[in-house]
């Protein structure tokens, strides 16, 4: 995975490798190559800027799924302090595909609810690739109820291909678990801010996505069905995923225009995975900005604001 790069990232990757080698050479032979190194760095910057200036929706989907992309816990550790994970749905078990708990955002207590993917094979399995079972959504609801008592704003990070499609999931009614979250999230009197940090896969994403503010990272997507799934159903051809990604308008600017998201958070050139620290700062700034806006609203005001926010979404005549 250390060497993983997407097809369209390759030119940047190759220059990066060259830079790395040059740095090692300079160090080992004690040669001053500052000028060459600077030039190469500039070239990398330009190439990355060119490559990333006009990404297709499908390329963004690939970036959203990039194995080196920052996941929720990467952001949590960089943005918040005193994260105190809280587990379990008090009913069946603890679902590692969704993590949650108290944390402090610049000293202010908040409740975090977030999908979590795994970095290596073992963790991926444990986290079920970020695909939660019903107990994940029920844990999320329980923690949101705790947040309501504590008066702590709820901050969610969405990063899932979808709720898990399996027998156990159906037996324990994942649809009901998501539905109840949707309903109950409308009743909380604390601010709710949701950010799609990678994959916003359908109902599994929305299940922790009813916020006063909904944001999306530049190279993330939010969709009613995976592009592959859509292509399979509509064109009977799963390989037309790129076309489906285009047709469903699943990335930031389109979602902003349809009022599905309120803000698109820019990523460093080359994508979030190239600089976790810098991306975390950008995300943190956006969270603080949104939270400050919502602080003007009363508890009832927040409930009404959230209702009206979703009430207006739709296209009909």
């Amino acid at each position, binding site marked *: 995975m250390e060497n993983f790069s997407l097809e369209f990232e390759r030119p940047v990757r190759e220059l990066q490798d060259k830079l790395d080698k040059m740095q090692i050479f300079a160090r080992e032979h004690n040669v001053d190559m500052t000028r060459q190194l600077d030039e190469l760095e500039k070239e990398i910057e330009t190439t990355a800027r060119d490559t990333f200036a006009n990404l297709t929706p499908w390329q963004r989907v690939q970036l959203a799924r990039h194995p080196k992309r920052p996941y929720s816990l990467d952001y949590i550790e960089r943005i918040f302090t005193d994260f105190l994970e809280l587990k379990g749905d008090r009913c069946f078990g603890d679902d590692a595909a969704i993590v949650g708990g108290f944390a402090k955002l610049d000293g202010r207590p908040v409740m975090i609810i977030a999908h979590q993917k795994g970095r290596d094979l073992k963790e991926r399995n444990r986290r079920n690739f970020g695909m939660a079972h019903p107990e994940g959504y029920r844990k999320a609801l329980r923690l949101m109820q705790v947040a309501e008592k504590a008066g702590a704003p709820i901050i969610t990070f969405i990063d899932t291909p979808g*709720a*898990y*499609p*399996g*027998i156990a*999931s*159906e*037996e*324990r*009614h*994942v*649809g*009901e678990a*998501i*539905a*109840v979250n*949707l*309903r*109950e999230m*409308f*009743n909380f009197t604390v601010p709710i801010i949701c950010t799609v940090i990678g994959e916003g896969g*359908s*109902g599994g994403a*929305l*299940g922790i*996505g*009813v916020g006063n503010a909904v944001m999306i990272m530049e190279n993330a997507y*939010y*969709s*009613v*069905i995976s592009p592959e*799934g*859509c292509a399979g*159903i*509509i064109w009977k051809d799963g390989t037309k995923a790129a076309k489906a990604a285009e*047709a*469903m*308008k*699943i990335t930031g600017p389109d*979602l902003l225009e*349809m009022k*599905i998201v309120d803000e698109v958070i820019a990523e460093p050139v080359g994508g979030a995975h190239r600089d976790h620290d810098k991306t975390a700062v950008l995300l943190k700034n956006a969270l603080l900005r949104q939270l400050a806006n919502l602080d003007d609203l009363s508890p009832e005001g927040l409930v009404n604001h*959230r*209702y009206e926010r*979703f*009430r207006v*979404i*739709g*296209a*009909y*005549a």
Partner: protein
Amino acid sequence: MPLFGRPKFASVTYIKKPSNLAGPTDIAAETVSKEKPKDTCKGCNGSTPQHEVTANLGICPKCEYHNPMTAMQRITLLSDANSFRELDSNMKSVNRLGFEGYDRTYLEKVKSTGHNDAIVTGLCKLDGQEYAIGVMDFRFMGASMGSVVGEKLTRLTEAATSRNLPLLIVTASGGARMQEGCLSLMQMAKTSGALARHSLAGLPVFILLTNPTYGGVTASFASLGDIILAEPKALIGFAGARVIQTTIKAELPPDFQTAEFLEKRGLVDRIIHRKGLRRELSLLFSYFKPGIDARS
């Protein structure tokens, strides 16, 4: 499908019998006449002529399979004659994404069903009790939920809340409508939000799950009934069986995702045979009217 002797339902209040006689059997009696035996029961694969099934509220006389009903057939079954007033019948879908082929498919369905989208909503009475009803019609693009379904259902729920009425939603859906992208996903939240307000007002929601109910509909309003009813053998789930099979690469239990499977696992309050549906619903409504008939 001219079940009531009319090919299409231009008028939503159309019914022949006076209200006190309009029980399920009376409705069925009207429907036999002009049917030609063409299609057959979906449950036992072709052994029963369509008109026999139709005459029996869509229930196959041989295998008891509950075949689909149209939205208007369902409303007629569950309301007093001439009591139904439709809401937002003219609301139409807009191809906001410019999705290839959507306009054509949509217009075809408008033509073939006589409805402007996959749900019919309105206010009606059942045994004198006024209530709000929304019925999804699977013939219309698999009753997929797009903006129109979401908006009509939200308006219906808001109307029920402001008028202090119970709400019944009869579901059938393949899920969210892909052709409307994320706009359709958001309808799940919108409808659930309206139901939250209805619930806070202390009003009851009844859901009748019919075959098939899936995806975003299951993961929103279809699962939010105070009472969740289902028709026998209806298939109900979040993910489709094929998707699950592809994911887990294992055999699924034989009764997987049936109403019976879900009743056993605690999602469904009652499975109701269509012939008893009207009576049971009326009885259920009566439990939410404290003080009336308290001593009788």
